[in-house]
C-alpha cells in the first residue's frame, strides 16, 4: 500500500513538474525529464525508508 501510494504521488508530481518546466520544450525532453523526476522521488523515498526504518520513533 505504502509503495503504491508513493508511486502514485511521484507519478502525479513528475507529470505536472515535467509539463510546466520551461527548459523541456519537446515531448521527448518532457518525457525524459518526467522519468528523471519520478526516479528521484522513488529513489530518495526508498533510501529514506531504509535509513529511517531502524529509528524507533
Amino acid at each position, binding site marked *: 500500500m505504502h509503495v503504491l501510494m508513493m508511486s*502514485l504521488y511521484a507519478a*502525479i*508530481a513528475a507529470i*505536472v513538474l515535467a*509539463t*510546466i518546466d*520551461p527548459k523541456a520544450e519537446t515531448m521527448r525532453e518532457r518525457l525524459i525529464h518526467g522519468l528523471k523526476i519520478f526516479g528521484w522521488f522513488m529513489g530518495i523515498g526508498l533510501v529514506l525508508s531504509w535509513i529511517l526504518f531502524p529509528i524507533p520513533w
Partner: protein
Amino acid sequence: MQSRDGLTDNVTPQYRERIIPQDLPTPFSAGRRALAVAAAWLIPGAGHLSLGRYGRGLMFFVLIVGAFALGLALQGRLYWPTVSDPPSMFHFDLISVLWTFAQIGGGLCYLVSYAFGWGTEPLPAATNEYGNTFMFLAGLLNYLIIYDAYDIAAGRKR
C-alpha cells in the same frame, strides 16, 4: 544583425535560437491574464483552457482533481486555521495555517468539499495520512500550474 537582448550576438545561430525563440508568443491582455489566474485557481486546468492550451488544461484538471478526490476517498481531512492552544505569539496554530494554505490551492475542490462537509469530520482511518498528503499535493501543484498559466498569458512561454 543585433539580437533582441544584445547579449547573444557572439553565439552561434543554433544556440541563439535555442535560448531566445525568434517567434515569442504574443502576451495576452491584463484582463485575460487575471482571468486565467483566477480560473486556474478555481478550477485546476481552466487557466490553460482559457488560453487555448486544451491538452494541458485537461491533463491538469484530471491530475489535480483526481489527486484531491483520492485524498478525500482515503479519509483525508480538510484543514482550517485553528487558534493556537496553549496561546502563543502567533494567534493561530502555525501548522494548521500551512496545511490550509496547501489545500486551498485546490480552489473549488477545497471550497466544494467544505460546503458539502466532505473531510470536515476526521474519521479514524488508517489511510487518513495518505489522504492528507494527496490533498496537499493537489493544492501545492495547482499553485505551480497557476504560475505556469500566468507565464503563458504574459507571453513568457508557450
